[in-house]
């Protein structure tokens, strides 16, 4: 994890290599100092939401097993806790963390120190008030029955207002850039910062306007849910991987041509995949066919992405043992490659007939938000936070515990949702299995999810504590980054 940046063209005509490098270091220190407050604040609130989401997720899973757990209070019934959990996870954790990492990478690649960064904190505060209100409204029964669009229209205005600050600052960094238009990560970030407000505003406007009736609302919901995860969050995740992996392995991106093909195919087909969520629903068949075709075409950007990070890793695979940053990021990147294949698989009509209306959709959402995006963001946080607070992560054992509990926890969790979903589908497909019996047969999968939750809770608490130690500047003194194993140990 050296700090050399061979890809940044420097315009300063420095007399020697040493000073050139020093200028670069000073410049990066200035950029980091300018985004320190907002990015750390974004991460702090994101992690708080992650823990909150975890609590709700555990409760939702328990409620599925024992509906009268903690009494028959309607606030805690599955139908309200589950959407509240998904919203905490998506808007509280994933979006906040995405903005944090996205802005930091944008600052680094555009080589711009942010001015008046306190405005970003105002944006984050607005956003967080919005999420808090939204979750309370969902729990008290004022939500919308649309997945990931549960917040009522009035709350979405708060979120958009918060985003206005965040997005404007992101774009202004790009506008004032001193380098950067050629970096692939910047392209993806521009896409993400542009697509998010469009998506969110359009979907909320259409659902609140009253002009869109009946099944069209389900179409809007599917379009939004799919794009929020596989377009917006995925763009930020891919941008992060393209930034982090070459940095850590100290190798340039493998093929510029391929990366550019990947980006454009991602942009062209990414927005069209939404209707794979509606296979079998009462909508015209062409809508679904178009989306399935788009999902298949999305294998092109995924392939270019996979080849690129795999090539960057070539000859550096041993680094996965040492570098926590690389380990988390790579886990997420591989998860993305796998999930693109799974999305195609589950969208085929013959498969979807079994898997629709089961836990497979939840599994796909978690593949995107958790297995891919969250792991990549964890990796980026391990990279970014030490550079912002000026000390290194306190303990390598804590990082190791965090990694393994998350890797096993989320792996189990998603597998149980997907395999359980197929099993559930096969039960529903058998007309002789009585409704209640089908649900009872699902119980082992739900119990399995409780075990996954134990691992995830453990991992998240460890990471949150570790982050708190870093905020209090209680890490190791700066110098060498905290590695998981020393090279000798591994050799």
């Amino acid at each position, binding site marked *: 994890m050296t700090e050399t940046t061979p890809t940044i063209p420097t315009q300063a005509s420095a007399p020697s290599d040493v000073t050139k490098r020093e200028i670069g270091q000073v410049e990066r220190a200035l950029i980091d100092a300018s985004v320190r407050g907002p990015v750390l604040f974004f991460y702090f609130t994101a992690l708080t939401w992650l823990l909150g989401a975890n609590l709700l997720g555990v409760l939702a899973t328990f409620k599925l097993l024992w509906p009268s757990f903690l009494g028959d209070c309607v606030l805690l019934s599955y139908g309200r806790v589950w959407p509240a959990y998904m919203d905490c996870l998506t808007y509280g954790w994933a979006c906040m963390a995405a903005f944090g990492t996205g802005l930091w990478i944008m600052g680094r690649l555009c080589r711009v120190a942010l001015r008046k960064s306190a405005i970003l904190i105002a944006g984050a505060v607005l956003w967080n008030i919005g999420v808090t209100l939204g979750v309370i409204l969902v729990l008290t029964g004022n939500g919308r029955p649309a997945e990931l669009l549960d917040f009522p229209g009035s709350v979405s205005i708060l979120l958009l207002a918060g985003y206005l600050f965040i997005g404007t600052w992101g774009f202004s960094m790009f506008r004032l850039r001193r380098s950067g238009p050629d970096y692939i990560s910047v392209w993806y970030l521009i896409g993400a910062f542009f697509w998010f407000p*469009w998506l969110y505003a359009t979907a909320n406007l*259409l659902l609140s306007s009253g002009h869109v*009736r009946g*099944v069209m609302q389900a179409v809007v919901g599917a379009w939004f849910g799919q794009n929020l995860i596989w377009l917006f969050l995925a763009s930020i995740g891919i941008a992060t991987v393209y930034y982090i992996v070459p940095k850590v392995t100290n190798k340039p991106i493998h093929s510029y041509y391929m990366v550019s093909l990947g980006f454009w195919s991602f942009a062209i087909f990414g927005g069209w995949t939404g209707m794979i969520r509606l296979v*079998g629903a009462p909508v015209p068949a062409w809508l679904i066919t178009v989306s399935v075709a788009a999902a298949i075409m999305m294998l092109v950007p995924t392939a270019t992405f996979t080849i690129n990070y795999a090539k960057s890793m070539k000859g550096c695979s041993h680094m996965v043992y040492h570098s926590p940053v690389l380990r988390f990021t790579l886990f997420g990147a591989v998860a993305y490659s796998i999930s693109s294949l799974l999305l195609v698989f589950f969208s085929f009509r013959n498969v979807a007939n079994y898997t629709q209306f089961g836990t497979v959709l939840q599994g796909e959402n978690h593949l995107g938000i958790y297995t891919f995006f969250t792991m990549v963001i964890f990796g980026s946080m391990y990279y970014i936070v030490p550079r912002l607070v000026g000390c290194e992560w306190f303990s390598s054992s804590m990082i190791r515990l965090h990694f393994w509990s998350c890797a096993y926890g989320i792996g189990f969790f998603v597998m149980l949702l997907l395999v359980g979903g197929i099993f559930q589908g096969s039960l529903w497909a058998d007309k002789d299995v009585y409704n209640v019996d089908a649900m009872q047969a699902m119980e082992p999968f739900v119990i399995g999810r409780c075990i996954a939750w134990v691992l995830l809770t453990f991992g998240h608490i460890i990471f949150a504590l570790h982050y708190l130690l870093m905020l209090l500047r209680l890490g190791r003194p700066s110098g060498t980054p905290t590695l998981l194993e020393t090279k000798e140990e591994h050799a």
Partner: protein
Amino acid sequence: MKTSRIVFFGVFTTFAAATVGLLAIPQFQFGNLGPVVNKDTGDVYPVNVGGYTAQGRDVYAANGCVYCHTQVVRNAQDGSDIERGWGVRQSVARDYIYDKTVVLGFARFGPDLANEGAKSDNPADAVKKTVAWQYKHLYAPQSIEPHSNMPAYRNLFEVKKIEGQPSPDALDLTGADAPPAGYEVVPTLEARQLAAYLLSLDHSHTLPEAPVTKETAKK
């Protein structure tokens, strides 16, 4: 400078195309479907019923019923929905045209409800078509299905002291669910709306795009 313009132009046009393709065109194609009028009988379907039924949909939405119950019957080739007796024909877009908030549902952790209020020849189903059954099932699902994982929606009911004559809607409860002596459990307005809504759910009307054939009706 040139690259950045291409990127901006690209992310705009690609997504604009997708928005038009997946939202505007479908809205144009079937966003304004109307009801079907049978010229011979003067029969209209679907009918826009307001009042309790429409308010009940809001209660249904507010309690997150969609996260466990769907309201979609798939055609006989795509699933066992019809064989299971959840409907006599597949659900089509026209069935939902008057739904201000559509509640298709995302998962089946419970049975499909598209025909919860439809007439049924099956005696086991016919019993569900009464308000009393719906109230009891909402208040204490396990009193009807001991192994059901449905939450008990106690918030939709109130336990009150019997004054004079017992209420005609008082729930017929036994065992642990029964209120203390001298008290009765009566539905609130929300429960009445929800029950009215559930009993209004009916996708069994024959439509040109989804006819009820003798073969499907038999099942």
